[in-house]
């Protein structure tokens, strides 16, 4: 009993519990929606969403689809880290979306337009993201412009700028840019040849594990490495110590002589760089091409907010939460489209973000409950 109580009192345990509550509530409402749409198949449909690639019976197909999910998890994780990093310093980086767009524009243009190799392309995307991020930081530090507002404006400015830039390398027959990865149909099924092979991220043979899914490559281990690096940076280094102190109590940080303005700009630059590299992790695989007519900011950056909060604002937690979000998103695509819309999984993930807003409330309620129980048992013990 005693041990049980102190176990529930641990902050890490409470964080995980709170995230689970968010997930359960989100999935529950999603399930209710499924029930309303078609009660008879709802239970199976929920299973299909949660199973994602396990829906396939063949192991090789499973692995191939797992690979696809992982390919999209990498950029999501980066956006999650971007949001998390800024939040640690007390900034809400709703601009991860725009920084991601900037990164996408930079790497696609460098790859297709300039014919650069993958590494300089990736650096370009980091730089572009960092530039956009530090602009918000600069405005916050020197002009006290609310970072949320400046980020929202920059999201759209980035989108239109990138659309303009990339329309220079647009494929005249489609709204998309020239592909990095050209699909050529040959007799023995779909294989591919790359139009800009130098810009494709190396696969390092990892793709062999995923039934030769050609999109799987360096991005996935790199993303995990960067998550661990973020964790190390935040918890093990002098810089991380300063940044967290600034986020937790900016007055104490100032009192201790930390450079508050410099730290804000640096943080936003790092956050932007993370979102930017995220974009190159997706677009340099050729998994997707950029449509220059798209009229809304890609949701990847916003989903990063979900990943960060669901991961309990911990870089390692974010690895799992971003995989989970991508897992159910892809799971939605498994649904029978004639009965259930696949967007039900985006709905679930947005509901999860919504419930993340209640995390503080969950935690304080949990603590109140634990305290009142402790009091009761103390009274009993006293008698």
């Amino acid at each position, binding site marked *: 009993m005693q041990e049980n109580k102190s176990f529930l009192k641990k902050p890490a345990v409470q964080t995980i519990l709170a995230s689970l509550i968010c997930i359960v509530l989100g999935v529950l409402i999603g399930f209710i929606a499924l029930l309303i749409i078609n009660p008879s198949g709802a239970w199976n449909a929920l299973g299909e969403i949660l199973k994602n690639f396990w829906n396939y019976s063949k192991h090789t197909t499973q692995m191939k689809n797992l690979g696809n999910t992982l390919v999209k998890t990498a950029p999501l994780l980066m956006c999650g880290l971007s949001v998390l990093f800024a939040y640690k310093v007390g900034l809400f980086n709703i601009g991860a979306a725009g920084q991601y767009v900037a990164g996408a524009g930079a790497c696609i243009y460098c790859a297709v337009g300039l014919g650069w190799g993958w590494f300089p392309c990736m650096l370009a995307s980091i730089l572009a993201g960092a530039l956009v991020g530090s602009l918000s930081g600069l405005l916050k530090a020197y002009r006290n412009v609310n970072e949320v507002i400046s980020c929202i404006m920059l999201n759209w400015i980035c989108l239109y700028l990138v659309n303009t830039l990339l329309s220079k390398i647009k494929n005249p027959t489609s709204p998309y840019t020239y592909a990095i990865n050209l699909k050529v149909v040959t007799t023995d099924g779909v294989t591919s040849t790359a139009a800009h092979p130098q810009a494709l991220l190396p696969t390092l043979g990892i793709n062999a594990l995923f039934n030769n899914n050609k999109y799987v490559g360096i991005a996935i281990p790199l993303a995990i490495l960067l998550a661990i690096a973020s964790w190390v940076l935040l918890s093990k280094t002098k810089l991380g110590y300063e940044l967290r102190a600034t986020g*937790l109590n900016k*007055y104490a940080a100032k*009192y201790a002589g930390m450079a508050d303005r410099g730290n804000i700009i640096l943080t936003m630059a790092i956050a932007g760089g993370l979102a930017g590299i995220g974009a190159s992790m997706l677009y340099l695989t050729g998994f997707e091409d950029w449509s220059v007519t798209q009229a809304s900011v890609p949701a990847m950056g916003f989903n990063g907010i979900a990943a960060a909060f669901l991961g309990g604002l911990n870089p390692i937690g974010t690895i799992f939460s971003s995989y989970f979000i991508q897992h159910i998103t892809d799971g939605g695509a498994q649904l029978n489209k004639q009965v259930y819309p696949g967007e039900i999984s985006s709905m679930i993930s947005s509901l999860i973000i919504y419930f993340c807003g209640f995390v503080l409330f969950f935690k304080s309620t949990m603590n109140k409950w634990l305290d009142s129980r402790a009091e009761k048992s103390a009274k009993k013990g006293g008698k």
Partner: protein
Amino acid sequence: MGNEHNSEYAIEMLHITKRFPGIIANDDITLQLRHGEIHALLGENGAGKSTLMSVLFGLYQAEEGTIKKDGKEVKILSPNDANALGIGMVHQHFKLVECFTVLDNIILGDEPVGPMGILKKEEARKKIMDLSNKYGLQVDPDAKIQDITVGMQQRTEILKMLYRDNEILIFDEPTAVLTPQEIHDLMKIMKNLAAEGMSILFISHKLAEIMEVADRCSVLRKGKYIGTVNTADVTMAELSSMMVGRNVNFHVEKKEQHLGDVILEVENMTVASKVHKNNAVKNVSLKVRGGEIVCIAGIDGNGQTEFVYGLTGLEPLVSGKITLMGKDITKMPIRKRSIMGMSHIPEDRHKHGLVLDYSLEDNIVLQRYFEPTFTKNGFLRRKNIRKQAEDMIKEYDIRSGQGPITTSRSMSGGNQQKAIIAREIEKDPGLLIAVQPTRGLDVGAIEFIHKQIVAQRDAGKAVLLVSLEMDEVLDVSDRILVMYEGEIVGQLDPKTTTPEEMGLYMAGAKREEVKP
């Protein structure tokens, strides 16, 4: 508001007791306010004045005691109840909407409206102008609060009460933010109001103002009721001694003094205020030498906080010069001042002193984490940090649940303060600035902290102590400078002065030129 009253008293608060966890804020206090009088409520910080007024205004409920209005017992559960009984209050921090006009602020919550909730401002304007003329409360009804002087803002607050037909008016330290001219005007207004039949409660710790304006004065000390006197029958010195009472000495052992070189020299320092438009610190000059504890005494809100902010670099100076150990540090950033040997035990340990969600060990190195001992190649040296924390815990007897990894938030106030003191003293500073280092602590912790401060002085360091506690000032310091309204108004020797004399300086009743 007729002349016939059922009772001699407009408001009576009888045997009020209000407890907070661990402290009795009001212990059996009785306060009787006559019709048409100005009644002052005098006491030091923490004497229980604010709590008592909050009970009267319905912000707190008392555990014991009764409140009577016009002889009839009443229950006041919220500010709305107070308002319905005709009780109004001018809060120390004005409750005005900055971007609204004076008129809008006055009518807010009690607006005259026509059909569809459309405001009838002309009606309100007439009533306000009538009140304004009747009591000499000059305001511009169409000016926005953000554009007018503090004095006019206060008149707006008074009009807010009159507009609601309140007849019992509470003024909570109304002169703290005013210029002398504005104070003079306010005194006149209060007398006018009383002459028109209003009953006024005037909370203050400025003796001269009380003597000038109040008919009677009730004194509180440490939550207890000391007595009520007619101001005409007493002297300021008598009031002062009622306010401060007898000293309970916990004497602190001090070695004989060996004065060293001048460590800190402040010349003509002026610092702006964040609260009002006047400067909070005006032209202050002082010197602190090695081996002495100089204490800045004074009542809260007389510029001590801003003085320390200016000194430590948290706020820029309007003008003046600061020299630390022979070097001009006026424009130096906080970090450099700290490295040069300035240690600062801040007034608010939760706001500045600690990152509450950091572990104890992380807070122990808050001023030194960047030193090579604790950081190598950008990485924190956790082992050394842990060792430093363990040493401090042992040396300063810091008690915490899990040792170095305890979250600072979960520690008791005394142990939090010990951690800060350990950190600041262990830096081996040339100058130790300690601001209210014992605020809110128990006797054991207070004694420990005093010993540490005196040990620094005995080791030849310069110590600047800022304190509101009379006992602390008299026991610990070697030299006392009294600050009143942002200026140093007196220098006293703790060996020869009395609390009464100090009280006179602190309350602005006495002043002298002080040469640094």
